[in-house]
């Protein structure tokens, strides 16, 4: 029997495999690399968890506290009302009316919702088109908003609501026919402000340039002459 035959026996081959094959030891750097790679996610998790937790807590606090933080509001009641009606006007420009209704069929509903009755109401003409009417809640008062659009596409918002503390500022008054409303500005909008009894009335638009103001005066005259709000309750 040859040497080759002896070596081919199972036992000898097993011994050769176990004893003659070179063994390759892992390089030293490999162990270090593995340990570092295994540790790195843990280090990241150590600060990431608390950071996310703190961020979530801060966000929750902001959401809870934000509504009760004192807001910067004008001390002048007239300016405060103007800011509120301008906000309502800009909201309508962006989102439209909440509950658009058609005059005059909606008048009873508007009166019921707002507590203000309109003995007369401007329903539009060849220059100003009636768009919609809706009840509003501004400065803790329920009122009525009526929206118009002129032939050039300018939106106008008429708002009437109880305003016992409102004093129309004299320096801003402008003589228009037999009336003397005040012209106030806020956030790029202009507003005519006047009172009819205990009702504060506002006509808001983006007509702020010199030419526009002349037309705005004309629109005020049309609305003022044909709209008569009175407190219902």
């Amino acid at each position, binding site marked *: 029997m040859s040497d*080759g035959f002896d070596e081919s026996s199972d036992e000898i081959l097993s011994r050769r495999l176990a004893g003659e094959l070179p063994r390759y030891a892992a390089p030293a750097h490999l162990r270090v690399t593995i340990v570092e790679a295994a540790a790195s996610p843990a280090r990241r998790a150590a600060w990431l968890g608390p950071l996310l937790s703190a961020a979530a807590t801060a966000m929750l606090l902001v959401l809870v506290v934000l509504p009760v933080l004192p807001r910067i509001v004008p001390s002048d009641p007239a300016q405060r009302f103007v800011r509120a009606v301008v906000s309502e006007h800009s909201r309508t420009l962006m989102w439209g009316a909440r509950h658009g209704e058609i005059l005059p069929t909606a008048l009873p509903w508007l009166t019921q919702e707002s507590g203000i009755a309109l003995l007369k109401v401007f329903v539009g003409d060849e220059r100003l088109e009636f768009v919609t009417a809706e009840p509003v809640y501004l400065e803790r008062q329920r009122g009525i908003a009526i929206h118009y659009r002129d032939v050039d596409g300018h939106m106008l918002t008429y708002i009437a609501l109880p305003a016992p503390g409102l004093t129309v500022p004299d320096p801003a008054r402008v003589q228009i026919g037999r009336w003397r409303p005040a012209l106030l500005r806020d956030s790029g909008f202009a507003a005519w402000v006047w009172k009819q009894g205990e009702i504060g009335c506002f006509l808001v638009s983006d007509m702020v340039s010199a030419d526009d103001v002349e037309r705005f005066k004309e629109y005020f005259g049309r609305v003022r002459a044909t709209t008569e709000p009175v407190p219902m309750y």
Partner: protein
Amino acid sequence: MADLEFQRQALVHIDALYNFAMYLTRRPPDADDLVQETYLRAFRFSHRFQPGTHLRAWLFQILRNTFLTFYRVRERESPVAEDGVPEWDVPMFHHAPDDDGTAMDSHTDLERALRRLPEEFRTVLLLAEVEGLPLEEVARVMACPVGTVKSRIFRAKERLRGLLRDYETR
């Protein structure tokens, strides 16, 4: 990620795993990557390891599965070996060309013959004869019945003997 004690126990077997990886990949850079990937997977899935079972065999199983995953990807990427080199001789992780001097040299006919065996024959001999794992553990690593392991060992030795005879007659 695994706790430090598990890591310590697993790293005891790094030399055996590296040796196995060298015979599978034939290239030290590939063996490095394969062992590192094996440990990262083992640490990540350490919760699946059943205490009391053979940690060493579990690590071998992960290493082989990882190798086969990369190996099959490589096979899909380059199904044809244009230069006639057996497809398992191209770098597994595509780090460098074959002739960069990092490929494992064969020191003996036995080593050269072992390298020429198909993977399932090489693995079964390395685990059973070189590492001394019980047949049941080898079967677990290779995900096959013990009978299949015995059959593969028998056939692997036959192939190995044939190759050794060829070397002796040259």
